[in-house]
């Protein structure tokens, strides 16, 4: 009953290529421009000046990321999930978006917040533990960060469905990681998006790791291949190549706007830092890997390409470094402007409408706080005078 020991092929199809470098690359790690007939037409507007601006974005967000990590080490932030290594994936896609497009991100997409003009204090307040979220999503076209892995993929899909039903050509974009592709929510989002031709881009940053788990544990297949089975195109790009990412995202957004439905973009990149400042990556990965990926740095290759294009990269670097330092200083300064929240604000915004139960709880807690202090508990500095654990009565 076993006629052969090799797999039947026929319709028992399974694609074979899982080579890591099997992706679209427009700029090599050493800065050579690789021609690509499909992708090149989408970035004809990117002249050296524009490329310089992409470099600037990446350099600044890298500096902001470093500064935020330092702030966490110094106790100013409770936690920080660094984006280091993923600058091209985030800036390349972020700069492809139109202002009216809506971003549903995970927790690591600080560069998207940068693209959307989120203020430093807005960016940090949630990581400082001072606020449930930093910015108003409707001011920046970007949802509050999502910690539940994959949940935002459905939100982006629903948003996109709504935008299409309204007859607009606005798109939504969902950011998630390689690990997230294992969650039901992401897969269900692909189902819904395909079914409703939703104008949504699924942007997967495959940074090789989900905390300590390598991407191979989530999938033995390229993640971009996931798309086809759900009825949408998938593309795998070098996520450390800002031009490839920009082009792929533009292609995907164009499809969305034309009513042609969703696209799945896998950006192959690497998380150079720890998962978060609470993580110790030495426990699960080798220095060799870091060195290898360090050689594929997203910024270095853009500089090399600019250099080859005749741009004065020393001047550029000088300017950008100064700008980045200013951004870092602003960040540091912003931390101190984030007020500690007043105690009774714990009750704010649980409901949009009056709620008898919560109002009673709030009233009771107000009375409780009043036992400790004669000054108002409502003031923003009231936290300082609230009871400390273990205070004698």
């Amino acid at each position, binding site marked *: 009953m076993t006629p052969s020991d090799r797999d039947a092929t026929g319709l028992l199809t399974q694609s074979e290529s899982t080579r890591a470098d099997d992706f679209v690359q427009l700029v090599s790690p050493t800065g050579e421009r690789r021609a690509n007939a499909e992708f090149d037409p989408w970035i004809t507007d990117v002249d050296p000046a524009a490329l310089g601006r992409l470099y600037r974005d990446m350099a600044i967000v890298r500096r902001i990321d470093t500064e935020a990590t330092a702030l966490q080490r110094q106790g100013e932030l409770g936690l920080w999930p660094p984006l280091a290594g993923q600058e091209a994936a985030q800036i390349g896609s972020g700069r492809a978006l139109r202002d009216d497009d809506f971003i549903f991100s995970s927790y690591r997409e600080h560069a998207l917040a940068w693209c959307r003009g989120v203020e430093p204090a807005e960016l940090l307040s949630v990581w400082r533990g001072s606020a*449930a979220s930093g910015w*108003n999503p409707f001011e920046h076209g970007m949802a509050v960060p999502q910690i539940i892995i994959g949940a935002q993929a459905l939100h982006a899909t629903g948003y996109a469905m709504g935008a299409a039903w309204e007859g607009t050509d606005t798109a939504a974009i969902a950011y998630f990681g390689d690990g997230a592709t294992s969650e039901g929510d992401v897969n269900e*989002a692909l189902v819904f998006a395909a079914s409703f031709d939703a104008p949504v881009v699924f942007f997967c940053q495959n940074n090789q790791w989900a905390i300590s788990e390598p991407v191979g544990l989530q999938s033995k297949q390229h993640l971009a291949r996931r798309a086809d089975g759900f009825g949408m195109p998938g593309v795998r790009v070098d996520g450390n190549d800002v031009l490839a990412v920009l082009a792929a995202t533009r292609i995907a957004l164009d499809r969305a706007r034309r009513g042609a439905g969703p696209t799945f973009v896998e950006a192959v990149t690497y998380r150079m830092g720890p998962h978060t400042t609470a993580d110790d990556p030495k426990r699960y990965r080798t220095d060799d890997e870091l060195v290898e990926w360090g050689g594929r740095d997203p910024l270095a290759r853009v500089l090399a390409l600019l250099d080859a294009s005749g741009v004065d990269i020393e001047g550029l670097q000088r300017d950008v470094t100064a700008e980045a330092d200013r951004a870092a200083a602003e960040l540091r300064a912003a931390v101190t402007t984030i007020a500690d929240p007043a105690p009774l604000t714990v009750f704010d915004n649980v*409901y949009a*409408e009056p709620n008898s139960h919560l109002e009673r709880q709030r009233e009771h807690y107000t009375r409780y706080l009043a036992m400790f202090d004669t000054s108002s508990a409502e003031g923003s500095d009231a936290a300082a005078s609230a009871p400390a654990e273990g205070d004698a009565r």
Partner: protein
Amino acid sequence: MTTLTLAKALNAGLRRALADDEKVVLMGEDIGTLGGVFRVTDGLKAEFGAKRVVDTPLSEAGIVGTAVGLAYRGFRPVVEIQFDGFIYPGFDQIVAQVAKLHYRSRGNVRMPITIRVPFGGGIGAAEHHSESPEAYFAHTAGLRVVACSNPADAYVMVRQAIASDDPVLFFEPKRRYHVKGEVDETASLADARPMGVATTVATGTHVTLVTYGALVQTARDAAVAAAEDGISIEVIDLRSLAPVDYATIEASVRRTGHLVVTHEAGQQGGVGAELAASITERCFEFLEAAPVRVTGHDIPYPPAKLERHHLPDLDRILDGVDRVLGRPNSLSGVEA
């Protein structure tokens, strides 16, 4: 006034909501072409089109999760969960997203999502088709939880839920879908009783009997039966399970001194536990006996042929009334 079944009253309420606000969209499995397995959405797709009454893929997390995105975009999604027992795959999206996004976004993002859930047993159904999951949601901050018990309320409350800027878990007593009642389709929402307010459906002096959903009718029947024995029961239809209208219950218990709560859900950590605990806190000195709970057992919902041994019925409610009044009852002589 029109005479409508509860299912048809919901249908009328949904139609009205769709007509009144173009941002209202209905989503769910089989709600469009089929009109829902209970026909609650019958005819609405034909009337409002496939972008207002949306047959979705078979995925509860998907339905609720895309509703969140639609709410972000300014829609007011009304989600149907086909049966109570199928809400759990959507639990994360409800509890971690729908319930928390207004708080998480510091009030910037509203989640005016209504999640309709046909609930409860008594229809001889297969497993997972007769559950009473309301306590999970009543324990979840950020959600409102309501249950209707009759056509008039169904018509009004579903519209109120949809109009609410907060997410509402809307429980529908499926075994009463086909029971008729008078519905005033002309009354305005502004004049209607707010969905957070309980209704005293029978007045009485000896015992306060609180319930919701399908058991409201059973409780009324119990009050009638008890009256023959000279026991006067005040029956309160809770309507809102979170928040609870304690003012109404307290006022009653202060008069009667006795509280019985009944629901189909299990006892451990059910809505009755919260009611008993809260009323004890608020009315301790008025209580002549410990509040009594008459509930489903703490078991998975049993096979159809056994469900009448699980669900509270008139006799079990009256036994609970006897218990709270210290009259002979099934636990007479048993150490508490």
